[in-house]
């Protein structure tokens, strides 16, 4: 299965053609995919914000943003510019250092997690061996940032919001990790690339969603809860807590929270598509199409075609999930805090444990279907 574009190798060979050593070539290469992914993440946020505005408008029978660009596509840029030029306020009685460090601690782990998101066989920043486990570990740092900003704001609503956010993300991390574990059990690997390759056998039929329907639903609910999206947006419940831990924030620091939550949403959607919906895989395997057209799989044309199909499929699947998340946000009521914790601890946790157990049993019984 080792086909696909390897841009890193070709780039390094290209630089070596100018007489540079391979080490220098590697150092010049290193920042490029990082920058690319960062830009992709931010553009993804702009698109999601626009989608959110348009879909919420449609759900409420409004028109939504209309004047900034065609169909209001420039509205998110206007929003971003407004946040950039707003005054950066630190409340007089707030704790300056923690107040500034909080939003950074919320944003950085989310962006770091993009390290493991593959858009193709070789189209990711780093195929680290611990793959999906790195994301679980990094996402557990976020509550510290939320608690920090909630405490530093010196505001009771902020503190309550921060505490709620931490409680929520601790509770939902466990079923989340358990449903990922079931996938890892089937793949025999933690690497995201291996997880996608394991689903690429027979196109749409071999996607993990058919083998892990319960895990898929548990993971999606937990991912929404980790992103603090409605129906789980208790940490910033407007009617109860003003805006939760964000209450005292303005300007760029608020923008960091805003960016963080949307990047997290896109990341969660991407990971759902990687874990359960076949990642970059096309519903019909590309090898079959190549065989049908009588083209060798290693032809440059097919390689470029495969890579672009891979990127398009990953983004398409992710944005379908983002669409569902936005629809959910504008059509469902918020759960109460006790309902939230009941759902997490008394429903999702036992279900995901049972799912893990059944997966292990099925793996022993049908090794050819559940990864021997």
């Amino acid at each position, binding site marked *: 299965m080792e086909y696909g574009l390897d841009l890193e190798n070709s780039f390094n060979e290209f630089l070596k053609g100018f007489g540079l050593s391979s080490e220098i070539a590697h150092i010049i290469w290193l920042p490029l995919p990082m920058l690319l992914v960062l830009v992709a993440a931010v553009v993804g946020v702009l698109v999601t914000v626009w989608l959110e505005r348009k879909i919420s408008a449609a759900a409420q029978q409004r028109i939504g943003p209309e004047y900034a660009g065609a169909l209001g596509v420039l509205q998110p840029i206007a929003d971003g510019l407004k946040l950039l030029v707003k005054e950066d306020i630190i409340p007089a009685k707030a704790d300056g250092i*923690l107040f500034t460090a909080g939003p950074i601690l919320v944003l950085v782990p989310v962006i770091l997690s993009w390290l493991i998101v593959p858009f193709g066989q070789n189209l990711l920043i780093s195929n680290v*061996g*611990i793959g999906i486990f*790195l994301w679980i570990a990094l996402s*557990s*740092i976020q509550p*510290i940032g939320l*608690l920090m900003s*909630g405490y530093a704001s010196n505001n009771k609503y902020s503190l309550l919001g921060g505490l709620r956010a931490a409680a929520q993300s*601790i509770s939902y991390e466990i079923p989340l990790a358990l449903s990922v574990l079931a996938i890892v059990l089937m793949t025999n690997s933690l690497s995201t690339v291996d997880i996608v390759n394991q689903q690429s056998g027979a196109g749409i039929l071999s996607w993990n969603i058919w083998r892990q329907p319960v895990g898929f639903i548990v993971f999606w609910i937990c991912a929404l809860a980790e992103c603090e999206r409605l129906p789980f947006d208790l940490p910033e419940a407007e009617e109860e807590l003003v805006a939760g831990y964000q209450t005292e924030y303005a300007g760029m620091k608020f923008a960091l929270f805003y960016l963080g939550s949307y990047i997290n949403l896109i990341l969660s959607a991407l990971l759902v598509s990687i874990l359960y919906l076949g990642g970059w895989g096309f519903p019909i395997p590309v090898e079959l199409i190549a065989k049908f057209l009588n083209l060798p799989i290693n032809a440059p044309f097919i390689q470029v075609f495969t890579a672009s199909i891979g990127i398009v499929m990953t983004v398409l699947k992710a944005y379908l999930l983002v669409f569902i998340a936005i629809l959910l946000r504008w059509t469902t009521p918020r759960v109460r805090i006790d309902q939230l914790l009941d759902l997490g601890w008394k429903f999702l946790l036992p279900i995901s444990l049972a799912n893990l157990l059944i997966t292990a049993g099925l793996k022993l019984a049908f090794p050819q279907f559940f990864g021997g």
Partner: protein
Amino acid sequence: MSIAITTQFICFTVLSLVVIIGALGVVLLESIVYSAFLLGGVFMSVAGLYLLLNASFVAAAQVLVYVGAVNVLIIFAIMLVNKKEDLKPINDIKSRRIISTSICLTLLSLLIRVDLTNVWSLSSPQNSIGEESTIRIGEHLFSDYLLPFEVASVLLLMAMIGAIVLARRDVMSKDISTGLPVDQELIEKSSEPLLTNKN
């Protein structure tokens, strides 16, 4: 010196400095909240040191367990009980300090002895397993380290049950340390007392 080794050296120096200064800050700072957050920073830097040693699984587990669970719970607890009250001066502070200093010095001498007596150099440094370490850790946990692994999980379960019993103050009508009746005003009372009214 090649670029990789230089980078590694710089990372090691920065991480060690963060660990040492952060740990000193945890002990010496007056504000308990700052101490708790610095503790998180120390845990993170230790995870970075593991990464430098090619132990990526251990590093991620360190972040998940110590930063994501232990440190968050510590901060959580501090914020739930963060009353601004002046602590009472302790009478026998001097003898306590002497005892704690001697215990710390004993531990330090033990560590130094381990450092001096242990043979640190690996027989073949090329033999590192890198990415395969996750599989090796799993194999060890389910074969020769199975008993310690299971005992640790039983210990954690006991700690969890103990914490629940302590947290539900309606279980006990008297405070353990003072012997006074427990003030149950702010507790959400369950409809059925768990243990008190049985029999």
